């Protein structure tokens, strides 16, 4: 079975934010939360790069390691999902994710952070696939529909790739052969250690 991965080619992102909009619209993300963001690092300095950031669905995900109430699980395809029913809003994953994926609503119940929300690789959550309950809590389950995440599909420069990890890393290798390594597949080594792109 394919191991799903995101690949962020920092040489190609033009900061158009189409991925952010596509994600928000497709999953009907509430006001105040963006599951995907375009982040500029080294802003205004040599080495400036724009990157599209969301959950990378890491191998041995740190969010899973720090969660005290066991809300995370990994699907057979390597997608890291979570149960909003079980989340207590402690925020441990929020401090632990190197990609800043976990998002919390601006107003938490009784001084907590509320329920964590994050990118699902357009793969829903623990509820029945493609059900209303799943859509309301987690957004669209495009994988169950035989599709891939819409953010990558909408990326005009194909800076953001999503799909079978072997396929996306093959595409990236072809780019490296023709143009050189450049700034690399941002975050790949951190998300999937020992699995060269």
């Amino acid at each position, binding site marked *: 079975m394919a191991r799903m991965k995101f690949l962020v080619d920092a040489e190609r992102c033009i900061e158009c934010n189409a991925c952010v909009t596509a994600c928000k619209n497709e999953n009907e993300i509430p006001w105040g939360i963006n599951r995907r963001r375009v982040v500029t690092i080294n802003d205004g300095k040599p080495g400036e790069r724009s990157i599209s950031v969301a959950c990378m669905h890491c191998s041995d995900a740190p969010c899973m390691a720090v969660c005290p109430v066991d809300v995370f699980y990994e699907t057979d395809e390597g997608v890291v999902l979570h149960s909003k029913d079980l989340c207590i809003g402690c925020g441990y994953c929020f401090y632990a994710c190197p990609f800043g994926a976990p998002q919390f609503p601006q107003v938490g*119940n009784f001084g907590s952070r509320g329920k964590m929300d994050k990118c699902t690789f357009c793969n829903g959550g623990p509820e029945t696939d493609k059900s209303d309950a799943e859509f309301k809590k987690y957004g669209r389950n495009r994988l169950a529909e035989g599709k891939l995440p819409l953010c990558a599909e909408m990326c005009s420069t194909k800076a953001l790739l999503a799909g079978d990890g072997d396929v996306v890393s093959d595409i990236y290798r072809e780019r490296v052969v023709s143009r050189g390594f450049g700034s690399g597949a941002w975050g790949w080594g951190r998300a999937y250690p020992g699995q060269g792109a």
Partner: protein
Amino acid sequence: MPGKDKKNPGWFWPQSLQMRALIFGLGAFLLMQPVWHGVEIDAGAAENGGAATAPVAKADASSDASRPAGPFDPSLRGHGGPVHAIDLNETKTRALTGSFDYSSILWDLSAKPPKQIRRFDKHDGWVKAVALHPDGRRALSAGGGAIWLWDTESGEALYQFRGHSAEISAIALSPDGRWAASASSDRTVRLWNLETGKAGPVLKGHKGPVNAVAFSSDGKTLYSASYDGTIRSWESGSGKFKRILYRHGLGINTMARLPGGKELLVFGALDGRALVIDGTTGERVHQFKERQGPYLANAIQEKPGLLALSGFEKKGSGIAGFIHVFRLGDWAPIEEYEDPRGPIWAMDFGAIGATIYYGGKDDDVTVWQVSPRRAFETVSGPIPRRFEVKNIKDQGELQFARKCSLCHTLTSNGGNRAGPTLYRLFGRKAGTLPGYPYSDTLKNSDIVWSAETIELLFGLGPNHYLPGTKMPLQKIADPKKREALIAYLKIASDGESEDKSRKDGKTGKEISKEQ
């Protein structure tokens, strides 16, 4: 010790004769103390080109042989949940710690072993920020969305500051001690007058949760660092936004102003980068070694001039915490420590920077002896922790361990956990366990705990079944898992197993630790 040169004591040896005399006197005093206090700071690693030449001290979770060789255990034991905030006073005789157990504890560190002075348990959420006031009498702790100002002598709350709509992540005190600033997940910073108990300006503008806040050395400027990847400066008197001082891109977890004449800020971010920047211009001053995991906390010791940064990195299929100690000024690495048990959420320096008190996912505060480095460090609690166990066949017992045991025991000893003990739960009227600080909702509830009411609690969710409860918003959606949990609770909370253990000669504390 690598590179230790007795002829050239290096950075730690000041030019001033008065300072030398003071250090000599302090050293003589420390030599008369028990082994644990016989410490010195070793600059050898820095002189030899940094921590790359120095072995990394590792905690050993395997046996009691790893406990410090000193005559007493310096760990702070008493919380009933992971510790997320630590602040020591200037003389290092008091510590205030905040925990997942909804409480903060004031400790007497001059006692051997350290002992609890007071436990503040009125918070309605986990305590992630604490601060000891420099006047030695007052203390602040933030639980959930409220800050409490305590009189540490009487234990009474002087003021309760409310205004944030979500959890508070950090507190900072103004240099004159009159104001406190709080950073919150609601994306604002608020100022509070500690003398009058009145609210000050509200600082709005961040586009993500605010994780850290600090006053400038003159108290006129406030710095805030956020998950939105920016550090912003504000006029502390009016709350007026000044500028975005630094754009890091990825979220910033921890930030502090450094002591000394220059207005410098240090921060650590999610992406494993930590920098020192100029608080006036926003220019980069120094970038520390990039880590493969996030930075989580910082600690500063003005004399002799040390900075510690903590976080964690992936190790194999798990994660390991780290603390890295640097010299202020030239940022040379001094010592590095790795704790294979997990992230290091909070820390502060002990006496003369020779120890670091830190909190992770355990209920205890561990003490790392920075220098001279010890081969093994104290460890606490079993691994896997009670809420991390996986190999339990009984589905109900597994549900309890993974979902409930973080906050509840099943024994007569509540273990200072966030929630009341479930000992003899069935038939108990809600909100009636003596000594537990219930919310008004529970106090005024008519519910009697039974299989039916527990089924409703987790089927509907605590916030729907008992609006206003302090219990987190956790549901168990699968009816089979709910059924298994209830079946397990019926047996495990009946007290019979505890009675049997008591007959076997175990104490209440031992029994509660087993759970």
